[in-house]
C-alpha cells in the first residue's frame, strides 16, 4: 500500500477512519479545521509544504461533505507558487472547490495565462486542466486564443495538445460567443490528419462540438471522418497502446460515428458507399464473446454503428438486418447487451419501415418485463409503450395489467399511467377502455392519479352508447369487498349519472344503488363524501316522484352533514337538501352533465411532455418529436380561458349550469338569492382550488365558456325570452365559437393538391379532410376522407358541392353523423366538359357539441388534372408547332416576376402539371419544350405544345409560348402555367362569396376568345 507522501495528511485520514460514528468524525474534522484556520492566520510561519498539506486536508474534508468556508485565498495563491508540488495542489483543489464565477479566480488569471504561454509543459498541463474543468467566461475571454495556439503548435508535445483541444472545447461549449472559431473548418481538416491517437481522440470531441453547432461549415471534414473510421475498423496501423481488448480504440470509433450523425445526409455516393461498407463490417463482424470487457468495447462500437445506420436512413434491407441483430441481443445472457438492445429497439421504432419487424419480437420483450434487473424491466416497459398501436394494444395493455400486480412499487405509478395512456390512445372500442381503467383502479388504486379516472368519466359522459355499460361495470365493482377509494369515487359518480339506465337490471333499483353506496359512506375520506352526496342527490332526482322511504333516508344523510365541519360537504348537504324539496326544479338543476368540451387529454399531454428531450438535435430526435405530435386525439384547442392549467380537472363538475328557467318558472323565488350567493363563492375561489377535488366549489357551475357556443340548443331551458343580460352572455359566447381555427394553411394545402393526387385538404381541431384522386381522360374520381379526430361524434354533417360551369360533379351520400375517431369516405365523380381554370368548391358544415362549423373549400379538380403527358419526337413536334401559327391558337407572352428556377426544377414543375418534357427538342439548352394532351367531353383529346425560353442571366423573366387546337384551351393553359411559375398566388383566406356569380373577366389583349363562364370570378383564386 502506498501512502500520500504527506505524513500529517495520512494521520488525519487515518484518524477519520478510526472514528466510530458521525459525531466523532465531526469533532475530529472541527478540530482539524480549527487548526488549519489558526495556521493560515499566521501565514508567515507557514512553509510551502505545510500549506500544501493543509490544502489537501481541506479537500479531503470537503469530500467528506463538510463546508469549508475559508482558506480559499491560500488555495488559490498556491497556483502562483514557483514549485510544481504546491502549484499542482493549488490547481487541483481550486478546480474542485470553486465555481466558475468565484471572485478569487480573477486574482490568478494572469498567473494561469503565464503558465499557459510559458515554456514549462507540466505547468501548461496543470493550467489547462483547471481552466478546462472550470471553464469560466473570463478565462474564455482572456485565454481562448492562447489555448488555440497550443493546439495547433507543432512544437508542443501531444500531452499538451490533447489537453488544449479539450480545454478549447470546454470554453467553446460554455461561452460560444467568446471563442472565435472563424476559419476553423480548414484547420479541422488538418487536425483530423493527426497521427497521435490521444490528440486525435480529443480533436474528434472538439469536432463533434463544432459540427453540432454548424454542420454546414464542416462538410469538408466528412471524408476525413470516414477515412478515420475505415482505418480503425480495418485495424490498419493502429498503435498497440490504443488497442483495447483487441479492438482499435473503441472511443475514437464511437466519437467519429457520433460526429457523422450530425451531418443531415451524405450525398456523395462514393463516401456513402465506403461508409456503408464500414458499417456493414461492424454490424456483421461483432459477436458476443466470453470476456466481458471485450464484449462491452465491441458492442459500444456496434450500438453506435446502429445509431448511425438509423440516422442515415439506410435501405430497408440493412434496417431489417439491424432489427434482427437487436432481436438477437434482447435474448442474450449478457445483461448490458440486453439492456442496450431494448433501448435501441425503442429508437428503431422511429424508423417507419421496421415497426412491423419489431413487433415480431413482442413475446421476447414481454419476457423482459420479468428480468431480474429493474433497469432492463424499465427499458422493456418503454419499448412496449413505444411499439403499441391499434393492432397490438389489447395484448400489450393486458400484459401491463398483469405485470402491475407483481411490479415493484417504484414502477407501479409509471406502469399505471402508461397503461392508461395506451388504453386511451389505441382503444379498439371504448368499452374495452372503460374495462382497462377500472381494472387499473382496482389493481393499483394507490398509483392511479386523479387524471386517469377523470378522463374515463369524460369519455363516458361524451359517449352515450357507453353509459349503460360503464354504469353496469361500476355496479359490479361495488360488490367487491375492500374496494379502493378511487373506485368508490368513480363508481359513485358513474352511478349517480347513469344508474337510471340500469333500472331493470337486478340489484340496480335506486334503493339498491343507494344502499350499496351508502355502505361506503362511513369509511371514505372527506374528499370522497361530496361525490357520494351528489350521487345521492342524483339518485333522488332520477327516482321522481321519490319513493318516500328512499327520500327519507337520503334526507337523513343530508341533514346529518348540514353541520359537518368541512365547508364543502356542509354546503352541498344544505343545498341538496333545499333543492330536493323543490320537486321539478331539482330535475333541471341536477340533470345529466352536458358533454365535456373536447380537449387534449391531460394524460396524453403528460406523456408528450415527458417525451420531449432537448438533448440532441439529430435527425432521429426531430423525427421523434414530429411523431409524438401526431397523437390521434390531440386537438389544438386554444388555451383555456379560466387560467387553470390542467383544466380537465376543474371541468368535471357534477351539476349542470342552472338555466334561467329555474328562476323565472319556479313559483318559489327563494332559490334566487341562494343561487347568487353560490355563484359568488365560485368566483372568489382561487383557481388552484379547482384542482383539489373535481367537484371543488363548483356545485352549481357548469363547464366554462369554451364548452358552450353560440348554439342555443345546448341549453334545453333557454327557450324563454332571454333577458338583456342573457343576450349579452350569448353574444360573448358566440364570439368564442368562431374560434375554430384551421390547422395549417388552407391555400397551401390546396395548391399542393393541385400538383399531386393525395393529401390533406383541410384540418381543424375536430375534423380532417383528406383527398385521394384518380384521373382518366376527362373523367376523375376523388375520394374525400372525412375523419373525426375526437372522442365524441360530429353531427349534422352536410357537404354540398358547388361546381363551376365546365365540370359535372357528383358527390355520393355523406352520412349525417361521423362517429368518434371514425373516418368516412365520400367518393366524388367529376367530368370535364371544356377547358376552364375555374374551380369547384365544397361547402361543408358539421356540428361538434354545440359548435357549428362551416367551411368552404376549393376542390383540386383543376385544369391540369385533365392532361395526359405525350412524348413527341422532333419529327412529330415541329410540323404541329408550325401548323398552329399565331393567335388565337398560339399565344406568346413575356412573363416577368417569375420565381427563379433552374431548368431541371422547371422540368419538374411541368411534370407535376402532367406535361412530358422532351430534352433536346429545342437546340438551345436554355429552352424547354413540353407536350401534353387535354381531355374534355366536347373536345376529346387536344394536343398542347409549350415552349419556354429562359434567360440564364435573369431567371425572373422568360418567354412562354403555348399552342393548341382550341383557342380557349390555349389561353387557359397559358394562364395556368403562368400562375405556377410566378409562385403561389396568395388568395385571400377562404372566401365567403364562393358561389359562382356572373361577372365579366378582364381580358388580356392577345386573346380573342372571351370567357363568359359564370364561374369566371373563381379564376382569380387560382
Amino acid at each position: 500500500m502506498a501512502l500520500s507522501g504527506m505524513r500529517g495528511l495520512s494521520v488525519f485520514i487515518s484518524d477519520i477512519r478510526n472514528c466510530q460514528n458521525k459525531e466523532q468524525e465531526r469533532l475530529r474534522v472541527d478540530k482539524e479545521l480549527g487548526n488549519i484556520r489558526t495556521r493560515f492566520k499566521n501565514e508567515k510561519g507557514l512553509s510551502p509544504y505545510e500549506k500544501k498539506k493543509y490544502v489537501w486536508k481541506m479537500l479531503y474534508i470537503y469530500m467528506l461533505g463538510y463546508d469549508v468556508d475559508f482558506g480559499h485565498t491560500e488555495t488559490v495563491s498556491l497556483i502562483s507558487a514557483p514549485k510544481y508540488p504546491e502549484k499542482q495542489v493549488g490547481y487541483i483543489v481550486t478546480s474542485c472547490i470553486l465555481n466558475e464565477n468565484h471572485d478569487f479566480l480573477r486574482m490568478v488569471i494572469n498567473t494561469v495565462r503565464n503558465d499557459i504561454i510559458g515554456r514549462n509543459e507540466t505547468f501548461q498541463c496543470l493550467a489547462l486542466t483547471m481552466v478546462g474543468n472550470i471553464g469560466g467566461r473570463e478565462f474564455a475571454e482572456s485565454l481562448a486564443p492562447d489555448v488555440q495556439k497550443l493546439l495547433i503548435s507543432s512544437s508542443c508535445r501531444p500531452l499538451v495538445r490533447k489537453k488544449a483541444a479539450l480545454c478549447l472545447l470546454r470554453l467553446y461549449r460554455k461561452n460560444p460567443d467568446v471563442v472565435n472559431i472563424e476559419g476553423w473548418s480548414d484547420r479541422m481538416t488538418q487536425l483530423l490528419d493527426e497521427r497521435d491517437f490521444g490528440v486525435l481522440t480529443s480533436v474528434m470531441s472538439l469536432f463533434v462540438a463544432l459540427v453540432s453547432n454548424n454542420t454546414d461549415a464542416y462538410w469538408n471534414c466528412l471524408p476525413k471522418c470516414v477515412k478515420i473510421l475505415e482505418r480503425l475498423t480495418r485495424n490498419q496501423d493502429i498503435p498497440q497502446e490504443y488497442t483495447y481488448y483487441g479492438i482499435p480504440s473503441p472511443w475514437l470509433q464511437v466519437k467519429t460515428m457520433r460526429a457523422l450523425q450530425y451531418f443531415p445526409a451524405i450525398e456523395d455516393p462514393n463516401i456513402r458507399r465506403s461508409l456503408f461498407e464500414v458499417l456493414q463490417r461492424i454490424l456483421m463482424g461483432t459477436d458476443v464473446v466470453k470476456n466481458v470487457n471485450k464484449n462491452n468495447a465491441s458492442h459500444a462500437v456496434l450500438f453506435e454503428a446502429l445509431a448511425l445506420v438509423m440516422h442515415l436512413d439506410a435501405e430497408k434491407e440493412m434496417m431489417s438486418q439491424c432489427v434482427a441483430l437487436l432481436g438477437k441481443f434482447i435474448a442474450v445472457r449478457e445483461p448490458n447487451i440486453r439492456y442496450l438492445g431494448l433501448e435501441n429497439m425503442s429508437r428503431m421504432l422511429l424508423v417507419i419501415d421496421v415497426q412491423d419487424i419489431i413487433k415480431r419480437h413482442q413475446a421476447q420483450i414481454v419476457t423482459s418485463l420479468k428480468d431480474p434487473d429493474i433497469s432492463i424491466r424499465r427499458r422493456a416497459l418503454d419499448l412496449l409503450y413505444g411499439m403499441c398501436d391499434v393492432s397490438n394494444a389489447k395484448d400489450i395493455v393486458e400484459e401491463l395489467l398483469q405485470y402491475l400486480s407483481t411490479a415493484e412499487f417504484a414502477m407501479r405509478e409509471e406502469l399505471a399511467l402508461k397503461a392508461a395512456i395506451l388504453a386511451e390512445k389505441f382503444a379498439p372500442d371504448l368499452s374495452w377502455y372503460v374495462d382497462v381503467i377500472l381494472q387499473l383502479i382496482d389493481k393499483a388504486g394507490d398509483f392511479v392519479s386523479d387524471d386517469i379516472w377523470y378522463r374515463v368519466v369524460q369519455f363516458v359522459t361524451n359517449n352515450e352508447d357507453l353509459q349503460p355499460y360503464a354504469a353496469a361495470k361500476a355496479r359490479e365493482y361495488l360488490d367487491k369487498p375492500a374496494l379502493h377509494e378511487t373506485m368508490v369515487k368513480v363508481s359513485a359518480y358513474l352511478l349517480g349519472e347513469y344508474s337510471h339506465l340500469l333500472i331493470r337490471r337486478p340489484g340496480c333499483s335506486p334503493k339498491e344503488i343507494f344502499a350499496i353506496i351508502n355502505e361506503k359512506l362511513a369509511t371514505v375520506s372527506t374528499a370522497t363524501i361530496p361525490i357520494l352526496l351528489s350521487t345521492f342527490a342524483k339518485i333522488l332526482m332520477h327516482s321522481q316522484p321519490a319513493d318516500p322511504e328512499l327520500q327519507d333516508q337520503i334526507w337523513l344523510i343530508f341533514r346529518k352533514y348540514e353541520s359537518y365541519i368541512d365547508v364543502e360537504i356542509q354546503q352541498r348537504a344544505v343545498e341538496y337538501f333545499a333543492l330536493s324539496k323543490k320537486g321539478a326544479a331539482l330535475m333541471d338543476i341536477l340533470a345529466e352533465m352536458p358533454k365535456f368540451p373536447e380537449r387534449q387529454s391531460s394524460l396524453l399531454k403528460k406523456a408528450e411532455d415527458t417525451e420531449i428531450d432537448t438533448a440532441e438535435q439529430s435527425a432521429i430526435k426531430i423525427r421523434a418529436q414530429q411523431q409524438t405530435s401526431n397523437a390521434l386525439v390531440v386537438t389544438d384547442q386554444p388555451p383555456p380561458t379560466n387560467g387553470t392549467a390542467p383544466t380537465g380537472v376543474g371541468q368535471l363538475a357534477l351539476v349542470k349550469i342552472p338555466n334561467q328557467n329555474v328562476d323565472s318558472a319556479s313559483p318559489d323565488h327563494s332559490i334566487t338569492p341562494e343561487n347568487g350567493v353560490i355563484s359568488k363563492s365560485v368566483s372568489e375561489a382561487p383557481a388552484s382550488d379547482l384542482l383539489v377535488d373535481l367537484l371543488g366549489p363548483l356545485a352549481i357551475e357548469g363547464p366554462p365558456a369554451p364548452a358552450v357556443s353560440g348554439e342555443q340548443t345546448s341549453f334545453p331551458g333557454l327557450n324563454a325570452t332571454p333577458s338583456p343580460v342573457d343576450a349579452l352572455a350569448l353574444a360573448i359566447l358566440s364570439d368564442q365559437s368562431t374560434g375554430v381555427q384551421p390547422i395549417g394553411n388552407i391555400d397551401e394545402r390546396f395548391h399542393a393538391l393541385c400538383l399531386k393526387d393525395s393529401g390533406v385538404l383541410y384540418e381543424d381541431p375536430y375534423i380532417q379532410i383528406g383527398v385521394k384522386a384518380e384521373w382518366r381522360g376527362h373523367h376523375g374520381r376523388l375520394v374525400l376522407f372525412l375523419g373525426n379526430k375526437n372522442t365524441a361524434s360530429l353531427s349534422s354533417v352536410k357537404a354540398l358541392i358547388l361546381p363551376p360551369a365546365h365540370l359535372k360533379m357528383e358527390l355520393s351520400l355523406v352520412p349525417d353523423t361521423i362517429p368518434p375517431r371514425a373516418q368516412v369516405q365520400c367518393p366524388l365523380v367529376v367530368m370535364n366538359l371544356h377547358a376552364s381554370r375555374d374551380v369547384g368548391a365544397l361547402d361543408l358544415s358539421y356540428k361538434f357539441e354545440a359548435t357549428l362549423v362551416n367551411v368552404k373549400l376549393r376542390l383540386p379538380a383543376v385544369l391540369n388534372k385533365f392532361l395526359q403527358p405525350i412524348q413527341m419526337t422532333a419529327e412529330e413536334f415541329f410540323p404541329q408547332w408550325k401548323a398552329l401559327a399565331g393567335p388565337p391558337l398560339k399565344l406568346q407572352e413575356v412573363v416577368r416576376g417569375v420565381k427563379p428556377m433552374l431548368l431541371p426544377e422547371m422540368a419538374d414543375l411541368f411534370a407535376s402539371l402532367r406535361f412530358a418534357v422532351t430534352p433536346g427538342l429545342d437546340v438551345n439548352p436554355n429552352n424547354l419544350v413540353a407536350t401534353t394532351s387535354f381531355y374534355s367531353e366536347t373536345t376529346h383529346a387536344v394536343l398542347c405544345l409549350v415552349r419556354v425560353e429562359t434567360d440564364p442571366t435573369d431567371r425572373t423573366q422568360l418567354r412562354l409560348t403555348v399552342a393548341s387546337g382550341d383557342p380557349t384551351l390555349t389561353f387557359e393553359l397559358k394562364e395556368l402555367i403562368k400562375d405556377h411559375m410566378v409562385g403561389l398566388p396568395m388568395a385571400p383566406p377562404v372566401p365567403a362569396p364562393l358561389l359562382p356569380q356572373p361577372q365579366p373577366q378582364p381580358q388580356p389583349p392577345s386573346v380573342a376568345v372571351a370567357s363568359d363562364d359564370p364561374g369566371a370570378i373563381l379564376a382569380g383564386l387560382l
Partner: protein
Amino acid sequence: MIRAVIVMSTEGKSRLARFYDYQPPEKQQELIRRLYGVLSSRPEGVSNFAQVEAIFGPDTRMVYKHYATLYFVFVFDSSENELAMLDLIQVFVETLDKCFKNVCELDIVFNFNKMHSILDEIVFGGQVLETSSDEVLKAVEEITRLEKSASSGGPLPKSVVGRLSR
C-alpha cells in the same frame, strides 16, 4: 459530456467525487447519498446501468462497476456512448491497479490526492482525454517524479503505520 465521476465504498462513503458541472457541497452530498441508494439496491449479476434522471436531472445516464468494496460511477449525458463509458471505468481501474500494484480500497483512501491526478489524465472537463492506460501511466509517473523532486514528506512514524493497518 461526463457530468461526474464518483468512487464510493459499498458502505456509501465517498472516496473520490468529481463534478464537471459545479455543484455546491451540500448538493454533492445529497447526490452521492441518493446515488448510493440506487447502487446499494442493485443485486449482483445485473446490468451496469441504472436510471438516475430522478437524481441528476433530465438527460442523464449512469454506468457503474462494482469492484470488491468499491463502486466506480460515471454520470454523463446522451452525447456519450454508455458502453464506452463503461470501458473508461475499466481503463481508470486498470491504471490504478498498475499505479498501486494490486489496488485496494486503502490505497485509494490514503492517496486520494493521487486519484485526482490520475483522473485528470483520463477525463478532462467532462470529456474523454486519454484512453490508453499506458499513456496515462506515463503522465502520472512524470507527475510523481516532479512531486518527489521538489519535496519529500519524510518517513512515517511507526505509530501511524500501525494505525493505518487497521
